[in-house]
């Protein structure tokens, strides 16, 4: 019996063995059990050793149970409305696995079969951003969590809620010899504690219920982050004891209201913004619900202030006249007030940094520019991993959720606005609208350069893709990041779900599974999920394409196959030049050639429709249309395109 009154695995087996003996044993045995124990001192030195609790004769009689602990765990997951649980199967969570698919009828949560734990977590990462609520992931003891760790770190850096459930076998005397020992650990969560928000090791089923609800609540409180629960194998597999049954309940979940900025700081911010000659609004991980973009549009239009969307979320329509995301530095140089909303790196936004033999930096703003930060990131910072970036010297810092702070800020701006200012701001708005249109014309002219080139230019790739999806209900769930940002420069993003941001921690290998997870989340909404897939990223855990095929996920994937880790080629080039040794050998260790990889062939082998590799840009449009037809039938398709580096 544990301290909580539940029966642990060892006690259960002991009592089951005893009960079995009482039911089927001989009368003599029964008598023996009820006979008073002989004094220890009376036992002869050569007395036979008592049977061990693990002897087969003591285990043979009770061999089934109709109600294991895993069933209750599934009840809890259902109560939390967790739609999916992604996992690569592992014996340390075989109990809850079986409960999910049988007791839970494999519905809410549905088991999503993955080929790598990194894929499971990255899928959940993207799903959570689309749906605005966590998805669950099951990982195997030790090795599974080790596989998952990089993806958990990405989600942590990206401030995304995920519920990680890790199997483990705590009772050393109950572990199967061999592998189960290798896959057991004293403190499973220690490995990821630096980059999860909270973890627990439930000791009983009531404890599991309370911790699962608490975990959900903590994960969903800004700044949102992954959380982890360790599930003991015995707790999953053993029967729910009679003693614990009356204590089984699932606590009520009440999500924490996201914190708004201090009223005084909001009023001062409004005053500065209204009176500024050249205010600039910069947003990164701002919009966490559909309301986020609408609020930002309202604020920008009230102020007629330009917006730089750094792309951490879908913050601002790309073709809104005040969207000046491609005119960053000139705006910053002229700004007198800069409002940063959930910026990942405020310092890096307002300072330049030169990666030369002598590293140098300088402010991009003029002296006296007022810097205002609103970020939930200030509410929760850990020490070890350095994703918090360099310290920004701001004038107003609100440790608050920016999306929740926008409504009171909008009201404060309305109160501070005078008729004269409104007239002046309208003129400013017209100026930016003209600049925006000119910039769009320049973008189109730039895209025309190398239009017919082979390898295909990233501008052509992006324009061809836009041509086939623009009349669909589409969402770009992932993108390689190395396409010169053409999609955000050429496409019309105006719905909150059309972009969800990137990996967060720049851990390569996020793109493919995030695309599949994004497709999973968007499936029930009937949206066409689209991804521009980097080749280096593809190769980390390509098994996720099988997951896409197996679960019939509508995903249109276009390979940005530039046949190298180009970011790293550039770094090695930089070193070669800096050391006066040239760049002609920079391809060593950085390129994916000799042989070239045939991505279409790889995914075809996993049941995904594919075309390519395509080097002739004129073949791209028809191939994309054929692929889209497949996706519209509810299946994934991939078009491999050999591309320019950027």
């Amino acid at each position, binding site marked *: 019996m544990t301290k909580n009154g539940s029966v642990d695995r060892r006690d259960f087996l002991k009592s089951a063995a005893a009960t079995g003996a009482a039911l089927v044993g001989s009368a003599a045995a029964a008598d023996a059990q009820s006979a008073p124990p002989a004094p220890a001192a009376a036992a002869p030195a050569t007395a036979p050793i008592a049977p061990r609790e693990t002897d087969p004769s003591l285990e043979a009689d009770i061999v089934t149970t109709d109600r294991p602990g895993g069933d209750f765990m599934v009840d809890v997951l259902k109560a939390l409305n967790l739609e999916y649980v992604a996992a690569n199967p592992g014996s340390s969570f075989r109990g809850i696995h079986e409960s999910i698919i049988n007791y839970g009828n494999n519905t809410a949560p549905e088991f999503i079969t993955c080929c790598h734990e990194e894929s499971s977590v990255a899928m959940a990462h993207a799903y959570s951003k689309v749906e605005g609520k966590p998805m669950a992931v099951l990982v195997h003891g030790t090795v599974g969590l080790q596989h998952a760790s990089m993806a958990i770190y990405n989600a942590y850096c990206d401030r995304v809620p995920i519920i990680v459930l890790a199997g483990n076998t705590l009772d050393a005397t109950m572990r199967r010899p061999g592998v189960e020992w290798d896959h057991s650990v004293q403190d499973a969560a220690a490995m990821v504690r630096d980059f999860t928000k909270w973890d627990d090791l439930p000791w009983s089923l009531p404890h599991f219920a309370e911790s699962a609800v608490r975990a959900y609540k903590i994960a969903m409180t800004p700044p949102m982050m992954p959380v982890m629960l360790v599930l003991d194998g015995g707790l999953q597999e053993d029967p729910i004891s009679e003693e614990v049954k009356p204590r089984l309940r699932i606590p009520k979940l009440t999500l924490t209201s996201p914190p708004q900025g201090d009223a005084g700081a909001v009023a001062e911010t409004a005053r500065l913004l209204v009176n500024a000659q050249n205010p600039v609004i910069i947003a990164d991980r701002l919009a966490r619900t559909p309301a986020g973009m609408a609020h930002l549009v309202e604020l920008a239009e009230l102020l007629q202030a330009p917006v730089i969307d750094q792309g951490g979320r879908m913050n601002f329509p790309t073709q809104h006249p005040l969207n000046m995301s491609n005119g*960053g530095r000139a705006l910053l140089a002229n700004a007198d007030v800069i409002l940063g909303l959930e910026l990942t790196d405020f310092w*890096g936004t307002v300072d330049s940094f030169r990666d030369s033999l002598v590293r140098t930096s300088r402010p991009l703003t003029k002296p006296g520019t007022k810097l205002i930060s609103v970020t939930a990131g200030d509410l929760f910072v850990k020490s070890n991993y350095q994703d918090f970036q360099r310290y920004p010297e701001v004038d107003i810092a609100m440790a608050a959720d920016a999306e929740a702070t926008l409504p009171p800020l909008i009201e404060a701006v309305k109160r501070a606005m005078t008729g004269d200012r409104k007239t002046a701001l309208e003129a400013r708005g017209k100026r930016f609208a003209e600049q925006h249109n000119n910039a769009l014309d320049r973008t189109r002219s730039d895209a025309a*350069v190398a239009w017919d080139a082979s390898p295909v230019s*990233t501008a052509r790739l992006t324009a061809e893709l836009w041509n086939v999806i623009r009349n669909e209900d589409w969402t770009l769930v992932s993108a390689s990041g190395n396409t010169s940002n053409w999609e955000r420069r050429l496409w019309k993003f105006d719905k909150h779900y059309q972009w969800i941001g990137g990996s967060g921690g*720049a851990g390569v290998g996020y793109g493919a599974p995030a695309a599949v997870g994004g497709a999973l989340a968007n499936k029930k909404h009937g949206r066409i999920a689209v991804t521009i897939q980097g080749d280096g990223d593809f190769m980390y855990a390509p098994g996720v394409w099988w997951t896409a095929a197996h679960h019939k996920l509508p995903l249109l994937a276009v390979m940005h196959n530039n046949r190298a880790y180009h970011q790293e080629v550039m770094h090695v080039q930089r070193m070669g030049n800096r050391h006066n040794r040239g760049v002609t050998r920079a391809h060593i260790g950085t390129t994916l050639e000799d042989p070239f990889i045939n991505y279409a062939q790889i995914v075809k082998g996993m049941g995904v429709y594919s075309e390519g590799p395509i080097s002739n840009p004129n073949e791209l449009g028809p191939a994309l249309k054929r692929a889209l037809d497949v996706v519209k039938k509810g299946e994934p398709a991939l078009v491999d395109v050999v591309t320019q580096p*950027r």
Partner: protein
Amino acid sequence: MKKYLILASGLFVAAAAGPLAAGAGQQTAPAPQQNAAAQQQQNAPQGNAANGRKLFVSFGCYQCHGYEAQGGSAGARLAPRPIPYAQLLKYVRHPTGEMPPFTEKVVKDSELTDIYAFLRAQPPAPDVDKIPLLKQ
């Protein structure tokens, strides 16, 4: 990806502000400046464009500027209509943005001449009005 975006965006702006962005700027520059630039191009040393294309790849220029020197987020557009040779030479030796320096030990002047010939030989971009995909 976020990091890449920030870096790429920074490089683009840095490059656009530097001399290598002049190629793009020339398209909207007043006629006298265009004439001056054209004159400077006329005075540039003659090189081998075919060899220049090979060198453009082997020296890794294409990594940031594209195989056709069309530019991108990591490097400015260099062609068509490149900046004057003297400016290119100066910037390659002593870049002020994110581009790493290419000393004469790494790239000889004669090789830069060939690369410049390749840049000059790049055809003009098609008229954007004749590309339906860029009009939507």
